């Protein structure tokens, strides 16, 4: 079970959190300009990296804040966490 550093609450056990998927995607802002393929890639396509991955976690049984986590999908090591506006890098290497 992971130990996750919530940027608001500190280190807590994984059972307090809910996983929320890839945090490197950005939702297209202008719908009239977005190509169908671009949109569908945003909705459906996800990288499945072996190594560092930037992802959303929700402190669902805690402060109810969403935040970013950089986690190694191979070793489970969490090397950084940050608020939604933080830049934890690109994720997959």
């Amino acid at each position: 079970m992971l130990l996750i550093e919530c940027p608001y609450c500190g280190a807590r056990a994984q059972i307090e959190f809910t996983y929320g998927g890839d945090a490197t995607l950005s939702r297209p802002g202008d719908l009239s300009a977005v190509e169908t393929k671009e949109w569908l890639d945003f909705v459906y396509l996800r990288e499945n990296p072996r190594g560092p991955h930037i992802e959303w976690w929700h402190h669902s049984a805690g402060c109810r804040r969403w935040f970013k986590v950089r986690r190694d999908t191979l070793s489970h090591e969490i090397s950084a966490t940050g608020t939604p506006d933080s830049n934890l890098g690109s994720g997959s290497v």
Partner: protein
Amino acid sequence: MSRQPYRITAGGLVDRERPLRFTFDGRKFTGLAGDTLASALLANGVRLVGRSFKYHRRRGIFSDGVEEPNALVRLRRGERAEPNLRATSVELFEGLEARSQNHWPSLEFDLGAINNLASRFMPTGFYYKTFTWPAGAWMFYERFIRKTTGLGRAAEHHDPDRYEKRYAHCEVLVVGAGPAGLAAALAAVRSGARVILVESDFRLGGSLLRDPRPIDDEFAPEWVSGVEAELKSAPNTRILKRATAFGYYDANLVAVAQRITDHEGKSERFLSRQRIWWVRARQVVLATGAIERPLVFAENDLPGVMLASAVRSYAVRYGVRCGKRAVVFANNDDAYATVAAVLEAGGSVEAVVDPRAGGPGDSVRRQINALGVRMLEGYAVVRAEGGDSIRSATVMRFTREGSILTGEPERIDCDLLCVSGGFNPTVHLFSQSQGKLRFDQVSACFVPDVSRQAERSAGAARGCFGLQEVLSDGVEAGRAAAEDCGLTRARFRVPEGTEEFTQTAAMLPLWAVPLPQGQRGKRFVDLQNDVTADDIALAVREGYRSVEHLKRYTTLGMGTDQGRTSNVNGLAILASIVGSEIPAVGTTTFRPPFTPVTLGALGGREVGQEFAPVRRTPMHAWHERAGARFVTAGLWLRPQYYAHSGESMMDAVYREARAVRRGVGIVDVSTLGKIEIQGRDAAEFLERVYINRWKNLKVGRCRYGIMLREDGFILDDGTTTRVAENTFYMTTTTTNAGPVMAHLEYYAQTIWPQLHVHLTSVSDQWAGAAVAGPKSRDLLALACDGADLRNESLPFMGYLETTVADAPVRIFRMTFSGELAYEVHTPSNFALHVWKRLLDAGREFEVTPYGTEAMSILRIEKGHVVAAELDGRTVPSDFGFDALQRKEGDFIGRRSLERPGLKKSARRGFVGLVSEDGRHIPRGAQLVWNPNADRPLHTLGHVTSTCYSPNLEKEIALALLEDPEGHGDELLYASSPLTNEHVPVKVTHPVFIDPQGKLPRG
């Protein structure tokens, strides 16, 4: 004390004043407090304790600990029966009942032993090879084979015992309380660390219990007691006995299974039987010791062949002699200590057989010579002979190079053969922590190499074997762990341990003694799974050269002992056959649990009713008194219907549903999800998360909203009310309350953080009742403290704040049933009070409380959708909700609705169905033209909701159907092949009652 023929008259850590009675296979015996079941059986001369897995060979106690492959018993009986417990780990208690396993009809006479005679015809992979022909026949054979396989038999009743879990944190967790673990704990505690020390035995000391060599001139058990006393008196230190660390997980989380009342022999009403500790440690010291390796030679599985260290342990710790005439067969010096132990226990040692040409170290040789024991250096035991027990061992001259046997075989009579092939550090937890192993050529074993977590191994667990070396290593590990926690290393003198032998010689790796020329025999590598050296050779010939494949093909290293005594021998044999080195062959993956953990303990208190929390509305007690039958909705309990005496369930449901349409009904809707949305961008936020318009909603008005996922499918529906300019009150469906809240928070916090919006879940803070039916306004007029409820003042989809019997309420004029209806929400603490007042006011209108069943009928009659329709595969236009859709701007899922597959023309639409012949329309039925046509049938649609309508007196249903407008008077069939029901139906408008919607607006 009753006669225990193999008990030594004095000595050992057993309490001779406390005899304990027990039974094994129904026979009565007596042991002593401090015994394990294994030591008590040995004290009584019981050698045959089980039958092997495949060949049903006779097996005896082989070890003295968790590595035991043979002595598996079923403990207790009835609902408390537990199979596959190691007799070597079961602490003896008064009245203990144990049974041997794996035989029929009895342990002594087992028909399954025919497998042993037939073993030439049952090679490795026998089942794979034999029962695959003819193709598909396995399913037939399997029924018979299953009866003869498997280990032990689980209890068939509900487990009556209680289990619990506990979370704990510490700075230094020490696993194992042998000399290294005790030294480490001592050093960590003296450095000021918060320490948890975990020991699976019921007594601290580890190997010191069998090798009680003096430490600091103290008898080892006294030194252990001293350390234990110091640890106990230290602040923030906890010693867990009878506690096995079985799993090492991410971020230094170690799972420990502790036996609390198992050794009491009875369950204490207020005590849990076992407890799982989840220990999160800053630093972990693994002082898990080492497990002795057997030697592989012909018929090495006979009862009476035992690990040398175990023989010593039974003699020294338990005061039990395992035999009267022993032969010791060992490739290392440590096992020579067994010679003295056997002699002191009153036995004789017929010979020490040592495959090393040069024999043991000088000091060892001097001691053995002084004891007058015959030494055979450069010899090996090639075969054991016997039946229920070993009777002799045959030795031959052995040359390591080429592994050659020469000379005349000599048969030595004995009833005990102590074997030692060296030691394997217990690296299981280390490996679970993702640490990398290294093969140590000197000790011929795998040792920890590179750590991946905040952990260090100490003592025998990392290949240190001399007592002094182990103590120093433990102290250093404890100090270093404390230092890594930011503490200062304690300075103190390292305890001084006395070595058994001062000059020792290196061990000689010996993986399998060859069979003498022209002889046959089984040389067991894995005793539990009956895997022999020849089986490994056969598997390699058949191409299973990878250690992981070998394991799965031969079952080497599987079972309850997970190959603790067999793995390294097995892969060394594999390496020698394929001409590779042991490190290159590698090990199989070590996985939790280290030893079997009972499922009850893993479940803890979260079983039965406590599996999940139960949520009750504030009116629950009232519902109970009113005769409600409850149904679960998520975690909630909701009234399903209120049974009157003499009524069937459906009578009650139809009575309730009719009452709403004819007079007035009341239903508890407190379970709805409720979210308060505040902030100056609240309306903007709602426009982005719903498909609807919100900015034009006036204060004091409600609106029905549809929420999509980003892929365009409907996530949830509900009404949202503008309570104030920048405050909205949203309701969600009961079971979606949590997911919708998380969904909204995600968008508010991560996608549109610039919006000024604040979300608060108020589901628990507000309770609600829906009052529905033509008389609902009259009822409310009586209940409310003078509020103006006229149609002009509170129109359909209007909102009003007032009081009911002085309690504040929010009234929403909205309908689910299609009747004139209101929802009355109130702070939960007032809810029962308000509910009662509403019922009082309704008395003159004969208000009828109704449950979820009637509510469901009413909404089907009205064609309202619920989760059955909003099943994650439907889009707004399927139900005509596209009319609600905002024409311009962005909202979640909007872009996906442009996909061709989500266009109305490509999809099924929402319709009603009426049964033509009055039969019930089956749930989940598919709609077809002709159910008897050739398969596959083209499916036109499917039934989503179905019921008997007591108001229309018809069987009706809601469905999604291709070309919903185009079926006219056509007869379709609602076909349910599973239940063989095929009901003719006609297609109608999905709103059966008041399609113009006049009633709720009246």
